[in-house]
């Protein structure tokens, strides 16, 4: 689908009146990384959301708030950010040899982790309504950013015994580092890979997780978060037990079901524990 056709479908995409075929076709176009259409979509979505915002606000029963907070209380504990000694060991070992790829199946770093950073300033300002508003704005703005930093930090932060670390032998000579975490609450796999150079024009980086026979378990587009680091959030109902390798390819068509493009990075994921 070209941009002209895509932009034509955007209004109906945001109010959700498209047929499933048109919807899927537009989604593929967006997944290919077209920034222009993505921006068009974001702006139209913002316009559409005015329809909801124009409603008179209504407070729900206080019981709902209490119930929700209770539910959040019962969610699994967040990992702390202290660096476990064993992780440090792992770090130093890693730095002497191949750049490791790690698979860390840990308890999730949910919203709270992200909110926590801003929460301090928020609490300090709680007496002043305006400051609270400002702080909330900060919380909202920082959510995503903090999460991305968290991924980077997490490689150091999550260590045994809570985390299950899987060491990987990188078969590539190229320097390549990645952190992979499975968030059990969100049911999402978070991947952050460094040393992934930008692809040629018209191509997009894809991450593939492979089973021991080299069959594709998942394939997802990677999004650059800066010059040579790319990240992906993959919805997965559970962490596949048989992940054995990972590939990064540059693909020129959207939503490929298997790697077809240039292989940029390749590594085995070998469980050591």
């Amino acid at each position, binding site marked *: 689908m070209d941009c002209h056709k895509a932009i034509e479908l955007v209004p109906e995409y945001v109010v959700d009146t498209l047929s499933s075929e048109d919807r899927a076709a537009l989604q593929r176009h967006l997944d290919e990384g077209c920034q222009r259409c993505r921006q068009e979509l974001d702006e139209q979505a913002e*316009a559409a959301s005015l329809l909801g915002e124009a409603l008179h606000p209504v407070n*729900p029963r206080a019981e709902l708030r209490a119930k929700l907070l209770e539910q959040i209380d019962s969610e699994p504990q967040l990992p702390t950010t202290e660096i476990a000694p064993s992780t440090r060991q792992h770090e130093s070992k890693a730095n002497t040899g191949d750049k490791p790829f790690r698979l860390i199946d840990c308890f999730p770093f949910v919203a709270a982790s992200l*909110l926590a950073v801003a929460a301090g300033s928020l609490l300090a300002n709680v007496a002043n309504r305006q400051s609270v508003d400002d702080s909330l704005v900060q919380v909202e703005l920082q*959510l995503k950013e903090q999460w991305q930093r968290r991924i980077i930090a997490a490689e150091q932060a999550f260590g045994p015994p809570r985390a299950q670390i899987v060491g990987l032998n990188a078969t590539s000579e190229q320097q390549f580092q990645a952190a992979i975490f499975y968030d059990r609450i969100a049911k999402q796999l978070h991947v952050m890979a460094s040393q992934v150079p930008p692809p040629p024009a018209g191509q997009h980086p894809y991450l593939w997780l492979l089973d021991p026979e080299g069959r594709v378990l998942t394939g997802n587009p990677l999004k650059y978060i800066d010059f040579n680091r790319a990240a992906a959030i993959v919805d997965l109902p559970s962490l596949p037990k048989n992940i054995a390798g990972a590939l990064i390819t540059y693909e020129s068509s959207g939503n490929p079901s298997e790697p077809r493009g240039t292989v940029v990075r390749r590594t085995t994921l070998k469980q050591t524990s």
Partner: protein
Amino acid sequence: MAAVSDGDKTAFTQLYDRHVPMVYALCLKIMRRESDAEAVVSDVFLEVWRKPGNFDTSRGSFRTYLLTLTRSRAIDRWRAAATRLKKTLEASVAVESRSHQFEEFEPSHVVQTRERSVAVREAIQQLDEPQRETLRLAYFEGLTHREISERLDMPLGTVKTRIRHGLQRLRLSLSALGESGGLS
């Protein structure tokens, strides 16, 4: 399992308090029944708590993200309920009258109106009636363009045009609101 830290929860609570009247209003509009609306509010805020990475600051304001998420979860539930109801009716089982669900909801607590809300309502008022009706059926009732064209007895092309022009007009109002990923 130990509880999450107090600081985290406080921040989340503040987000909830700030945005829940808007979220709940939209849920009520779509779901119509308080209990159903509350269920969607819970879904939405739990999702915000569990999947913070889904909110991308580069793609707009938190308010827009929240409203989009709310609308989508509410419509999903509404459609699922409609499917269940249809199946029940097909099975010729007596069901609770739906009329209750379609009663206009009388808000129990209308919270203070902010300046922005007034401006937003004015923006909606500036749509012409056919545009507003078409957008309403799509946004709040989750009808497909085909269903809308049947409901309003007009060609598909007209439905598409109205949606496109209606959104275009709302978009112009956005700039008048000084909206550029604003958060207040």
